[in-house]
C-alpha cells in the first residue's frame, strides 16, 4: 500500500511539538500531517500512534471515517469532477467518462506516475456554471468533453 520507502519521520516533529500538550487534537494533527506528506503513510501513522499515545486502531477509525484523509499517495494534480444532479444532467457524466478515458483511471484513483488523482464530488455549489470540474482548486465551468481534454493536456 505504501509505495515510498524513504519517508522522513522527522518531518513530523514540528507538528507533534505544536500539539504536544493538547488532548483530543488528533484531527488537526492528522490534517497537518497530511499537509506535510501529501497523504497519511502507514509508517507515519504508526509513529504518530506511539508519539501521541493513541492506538493505531483508533487512528485508522478516524482516518477512514473522514473523507478528507488519504491513506494512499495522491497525484500532483487533483481533478475533481462534480457529480451533483445539476452538473450530471447537463453533461457531467460524459465529461467524467472523458476524463477517466484520458487519464486511464477510474474515479477515486491516482495515475501510476502520480501525476493525477481523479475524484468526484457532490454538488460544489456552483450549479449555474455546470458541468463543473475543479483542477487543483481552480473552477472550470461549462465543461465539455473537448474542453476537458484541452485543459488536461495543458497541465
Amino acid at each position, binding site marked *: *500500500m505504501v509505495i515510498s520507502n524513504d519517508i522522513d519521520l522527522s518531518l513530523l516533529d514540528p507538528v507533534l511539538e505544536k500539539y504536544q500538550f493538547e488532548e483530543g487534537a488528533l484531527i488537526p494533527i492528522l490534517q497537518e500531517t497530511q499537509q506535510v506528506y501529501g497523504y497519511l503513510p*502507514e509508517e507515519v*501513522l504508526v509513529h504518530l500512534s506511539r508519539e501521541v499515545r493513541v*492506538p*493505531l*486502531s*483508533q*487512528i*485508522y*477509525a478516524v482516518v*477512514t*471515517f473522514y*473523507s478528507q484523509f488519504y*491513506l494512499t499517495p495522491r497525484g500532483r494534480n487533483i481533478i475533481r469532477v462534480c457529480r451533483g444532479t445539476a452538473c450530471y444532467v447537463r453533461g457531467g457524466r460524459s465529461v467524467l467518462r472523458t476524463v477517466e478515458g484520458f487519464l486511464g483511471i477510474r474515479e477515486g484513483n491516482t495515475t501510476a506516475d502520480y501525476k493525477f488523482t481523479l475524484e468526484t464530488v457532490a454538488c460544489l455549489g456552483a450549479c449555474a456554471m455546470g458541468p463543473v470540474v475543479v483542477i487543483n482548486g481552480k473552477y472550470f465551468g461549462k465543461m465539455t468533453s473537448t474542453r476537458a481534454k484541452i485543459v488536461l493536456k495543458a497541465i
Partner: protein
Amino acid sequence: MAKVSLTIDNQKVVVEEGTTIFQAAKGVGIEIPHLCHREDMLPTSACRLCVVEVDGARNLVASCSYPVSNNMVVRTNTERVIKARRLIIELLLSDHPFDCMTCEKSGACDLERYAYELGVPTTRFQGEKHAYPLDETNPFFVRDYNKCILCGRCVAACNEVQFVEAINFAHRGFNTKVATPYDRSLLDSTCLFCGQCVAACPVGALTEKSRRFQGREWEFRKVSTVCPYCGVGCNIELDIKDNRIVRVNAPANGVVNQGRLCVKGKFGLDFVHSPERLTTPLIRDGERGDGKFKEASWEEALDLVAKRLSELKNRSGADSLAILSSAKCTTEENYLMQKLARAVLGTNNIDHCARLCHASTVTALSAAFGSAAMTNSIAELRDADCIFIIGSNTSENHPIIALEIMEGVRHGKTKLIVADPRKVRMVDYAHLWLRQKPGTDVALINGMLHIIIAENLYDADFVQARTEGFEELREAIAEYPPSIVSQITGIPVDNLYQAARLYAQSPKACILFAMGITQHTTGTDNILALANLAMLTGHLGRESTGVSPLRGQNNVQGACDVGALPDLFPGYESVTDEVSQGKFEQAWGVSLPDTPGLTVVEMIHKAVAGQVKGMYIMGEDPVLSDPNNTLVVRALKNLDFLVVQDIFLNETAKFADVVLPGVSFAEKDGTFTNTERRIQRVNKSIKPIGDSKPDWQIISELASRLGYTMTYNHPAEIMEEIASLTPIYGGVHYDRLNQQGLQWPCRNRDDPGTKYLHKGRFTRGLGKFHATPYREPFELPDEDYPFILTTGRILYHWHGGTLSRHSPGLAEIRPEAEVEINPQDAEMLCCSDGDLVELASRRGEILVKVKVTDKSPQGVAFMTFHFKEAPVNRLTIDALDPVAKIPEFKVCSVKINPATSQE
C-alpha cells in the same frame, strides 16, 4: 452520595445520583431489552433498543446511558416504546442473514431473543445487504461480518476491558465495520487473542472455532472450575458435551478475574483432548531413553513400581530415592506425595519446580517477615498509588494481574515503575522505566534505599515500632550512593532519584516481582532487599501495599503450603523441629526422617553421582525445565529406576521404566491455591480419558502396595486431614469452598480467611532488615561468550510446552522457538528475522531462529524454554543461590554464530 427518587413503571425507586435508568430498573427487577450495553463497559448508546419513555421528554431516551433525576417518571413498556423497539429490530434484520437454524449462537443470541420477544418474524425493509467473506484467518475464532450488528461491544471489550486496542470501527456509512488497522487479519494486529470480544458479542458474529458444529447452546453442561495454567487462578466455566470441553468462558462474577481470561485459559485448554494423551500405563521395552514402551495394566505397572522402589530402599536406603512432585497437580495430591515420601518411603527427598522459580522467595520472605507468600491480594492492585514491578513480565506471564495494574494506571490512580532489562509490554504503561543490566537488582534496590534514607523519606514510626536491624541496614547501604549504583546498573542517576521518591512518597505502594528477581545466584538477596524497601517505607500490612511474589504455576503455592519441599512439612513447619515432627509422626503413625532432603538440582547431581538411584517424577519435565539439561539427561540415564506420572509422554518420560497416566485438571476433583493464597475448588468436569486415573488415586494405590494403607474416597477427605495438621489451612473444608474460595491463613471454621498479611504484626513478630551486599552474577560475558542470555516465557506457551504445545491453536500461533536480539547486535552479526543461528554456552549449543527486536537491550539475548527442539536449558547454568538453591536461569553467557555448517 445524594439519593434520587423516581418512578419506574409505577414503582417507587430510590437510587444513588448518577445511576442510569437502566441500572435503576434492574435494581427493582425490570430488565430493559438491550444490545450494545454491557455492565462491565461504558455505554456506547449505539443500538437504542433500550429506549424508554420519560414523562416530559419529547423523545424516547436510551436508558443505558440516561441518568436518573429526582421525581422522574419512567415507563419501560408502553406501546410507543415497543413500537420503537420493533422498528429497531426490523432494521437490524434488514441487513442480517436469516441463519438461526445453523447459527452457533442460536439459543443465546440477543437479536434472536428480542425478535422473538417483540414478535418480529421478518422485516419489511429490503435494502442492500452485505456479503462479506467469513474471516477465518486466526486459529481461535471466526468473524462473520454479515451477522455483525455494529453494537460495539467487541470494541469496548478489547479497548476498555483488555486494554489491547486492536480493533475499532472503521470506514463510514454502509461500509462501517469493526476492523484492525488497514483491515488486516487479527494475526497482523496487536491482538492477543484473549477472546474477550467473542465473549462480549451478543450475536453470532464472533464464534470460537472449537465449538463450531459441536452442539447447540442448550445442549451444553456447564462446570465451574479453575484455569490450570498460571498462578493467577482464573475462574472458568467449561461447556461440556459428550465428555468433551467444547468452549471455555469466564463467569462475570469470578472473584479472581471477573470475566476476563488470557488466550491460554480461553483457547488453550484443548490439550485435554489431544490424541497424544497417555491412556494406559506403560512399561519400558528396550534401552532406557529409546522411548520404546509396551502397554500394561494398572496392576502390573503399580506392582512393578512398588517392587522396585522397595528393593532400592532395602538395598541402598530410603535416601537413595527421590520424588519430584508437581505444582500442576492439586494441593491434595501434593500432600499425598510428600506423605508418600516421608511416611511411606521414609525420605525427605521431595521437591518440585518451586525450587526453580520461587525458592529464594521462600527463604527471603520467611527470614524477613516470617511467611513467604504474596502479602496482598490481586484486587487491591488497582487502588495502589504506586506499583513497582521488578523482574516480572506481568502482561505475558500473569496477564490478568497485568490488567488489574493497567486499570489503576488508566484511571490515573496508579503511577507505575517498571524495572526490567527488556522492554516488556508493561513498560508502555509505566511512568518510569528503569532498564537495569541483568543481575544488578540488588545494587538498584540498595541505591533506592540509600536515597530514601539520605532524603529522610522513610517511615520512622514503622521502622521503630515494627522492625529490627535498621542500624545495620543504614550502615550497609552507605556504600551505595546513586553515582556508584548508576555505574553498576546502567540506570541514570535522575531515574534512581525519581523511583526512590515516587515509591517512598506514595501513600500506598506495592512491589511485585517474579522470576526476574528470584532466578539468580543472588535471588535471596534480591528479595531481602525488596523486603527492606517495603519495611523502610512502611508499605506493608495495609491494603494495596506489600511485597508480592507472583507465583508461576497454577498451584505452586498449594504445593509449597502442604510441604512438597525437602525441608518443610505441611504448613511450613521445619522437618528438623521436634515438636512438628512429633505431631506428624503421631498423625501418620510412623517415625519420620529428621534431616532435610535434597532439592531439585541436588537430586540431579546425586543421581549423576549414583547416590540417588530411584526417582518418582509427577507432572514435571526436568529435561526441559531444569538448568544445564545435558546433566539432567545423564542423571536420568544413570538411575536404576525411574517412574514418571504425567498426562503426556514428555521428554523426561522417555527415560522412564514405568509411565503412569495421570489425568488433567478437568478429570478430577481437588483444589488449587493461587498466587494470592486463595484456595479454590477444581471440579471434575469429564470422565478420565482412556484408562488414566486421578493422581491422588494413583498415589494412594501405590502407598497401599508399599505397605501403608491409604483409603481416601474423595479429595475432600484429604483436605480434612490437611486442615487438621496445617494451621494456616485449619478452616479449609470443601463445604466452605464456594465461589469466593478462601485465602489462607484461615485457621478455623469461623475464620473468613486473610486478604492481606502482616497487619499490625509480622508473622515472625518484628520485621527484620538484612544487609544485602551486591554480588555479580556467576557467569559474565567475556571475549569467548560475549552475550548475556536471559530466559523466560511468552503469553502463548507454558513451561516445557507439555500442555500448551498440545493445544492446536497455541501451537499454530507460536510454532517454534526464537531468540530475541537487539537490532544493533543483529547488524553486527549480519543476521535478520528468521535466520538460523547457533547459540552456544560453555555447556552446550542449540540451533534457533532469530527475532530482531528492541525489546532486548544490546548485548542481551532472550529465549523461552517452551520448545524441546531448541531446549534453552542446554545452555543455562546450574550455579545456585547459596541459601535457596535456585539456579541462575536469568544470566549466563553465550555466543551467537550463523548456523552455516548444519543442514
